[in-house]
């Protein structure tokens, strides 16, 4: 698509260039005076194709679109003073657990890491806008559960959670089994003297898969 852009394309292009944040198709259509959504989508796709070989690209992140610099130019553009939020190791792990397992409760995060999570760790991620409260799990105690946000996908350049690195392998290896199982196991399992019973039971649940795909886990 290298021809001249039509009016819708020009309008979408200008709007996304000018916007301070990524925009969904809905938001674009609304901003452009209640334009038809299919027309907006067509324009977005044509633009994305047009920009693909350029130094600036049009990308979709969690159903929101924005322009960004091409990844291969990072070496030219990288800025000395780091603008990226530095995460502690604990926060990094918690973020990954939320991303790969969402939605998860704090207890579930702790079961996977085998250690308590400091209060501030979740706060940092909430403040960064990368995770959000996603309601409560309907089990005794009704714990709050967490999930990632569109900003998270945006920041890490993911179109959706399916793009998370190693997602398929982890799932195939049974390492992402639904955390709900933990709870059921927790209810039924009282045999373990020391270590968190739920955790072990959960790992036990995923046994068969694990062995078949043993090598996949060492990515």
């Amino acid at each position: 698509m290298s021809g001249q852009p039509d009016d819708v394309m020009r309008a979408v292009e200008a709007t996304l260039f000018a916007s301070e944040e990524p925009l969904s198709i809905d938001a674009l259509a609304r901003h452009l005076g209640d334009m038809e959504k299919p027309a907006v989508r067509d324009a977005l796709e044509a633009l994305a194709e047009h920009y693909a070989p350029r130094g600036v690209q049009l990308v979709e992140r969690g159903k929101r679109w924005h322009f960004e610099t091409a990844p291969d130019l990072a070496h030219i553009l990288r800025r000395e003073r780091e603008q990226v939020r530095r995460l502690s190791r604990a926060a990094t792990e918690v973020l990954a657990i939320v991303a790969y397992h969402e939605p998860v409760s704090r207890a579930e995060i702790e079961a996977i890491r085998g250690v308590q999570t400091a209060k501030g760790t979740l706060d940092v991620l909430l403040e960064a806008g990368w995770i959000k409260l996603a309601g409560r799990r309907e089990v005794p105690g009704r714990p709050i559960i967490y999930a990632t946000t569109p900003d998270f996908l945006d920041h890490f350049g993911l179109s959706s959670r399916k793009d998370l690195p190693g997602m398929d392998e982890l799932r195939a290896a049974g390492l992402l089994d639904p955390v709900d199982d933990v709870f059921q196991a927790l209810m039924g399992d009282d045999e373990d003297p020391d270590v968190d019973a739920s955790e072990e039971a959960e790992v036990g649940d995923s046994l068969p898969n694990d062995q078949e795909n043993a090598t996949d886990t060492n990515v």
Partner: protein
Amino acid sequence: MTQEELLIEGGRGTDLTGKDDDWIGIASDLPEDTSKLYIEVEGWEGPLDLLLDLARRQKVDLRQISILALVDQYLTYIDEAEALKLELAADYLVMAAWLAYLKSAMLLPKDEQEDPSAEELALRLQLRLARLGALREAAARLMGRDRIGRDIFTRGAPEGLRTDRKVQWTCDSYALIQGYGQVKARTAPKIYHVSDRPVMTLDSALERVSAMLGVTLEWMEIRDFLPPHAKPALRKSALASSFVAMLELAKNGQAELAQDDCYGDLRIRRLRQ
């Protein structure tokens, strides 16, 4: 996995340095000036993290590690920490106790093992480590992606989009005039009439009851004293006043009252003096 496999490898040296080698995400800052071992303890994200790191030192697939060796390494580590009188968090000690239990169970002949078997417990531990290890790899890869603000940039100076809401006010003339009417009506001076209502005063009731009692020594019912053709409002007033008049006469010893039951007829009789 058999117990023999678990026992294959002997304990390797416990290398306590370079623990962050595998970590390609962003490591936490560690204090540099305290004793080395203490730093190590501070650096772990819990006992499972320590175990995972020890397991990695075996330089084999996490599936192939020797659990027994791992247990020994962990226990040695904890021993050293205690020898240095370092305070270990309780969860490290809990893990040590559990691993010691696991080790003793593993050394028992298979048929003497309790349920769940040591083999099963070891396998679970291994899987748990595999899970944490895999997740950690994933986290590192996630952090290593091209990130906005570091590798990828959005527009530096976006013009910004603005939607100005312009309100178009509307009002019709009827509402306008009605509004004015209501203001005027609401604030117009008000004149209040107090109507003159027919009442029987206490004095006249007293007079009336005394006079009527004077003609007989028989019991009379309160209603006998009410003006026969009075309107309901006056009748109510007369009833109340007559009642008070009766109480007054009784108090003065001029009459006695009787009522057989609650809400029953209220009767009065003159006392002979």
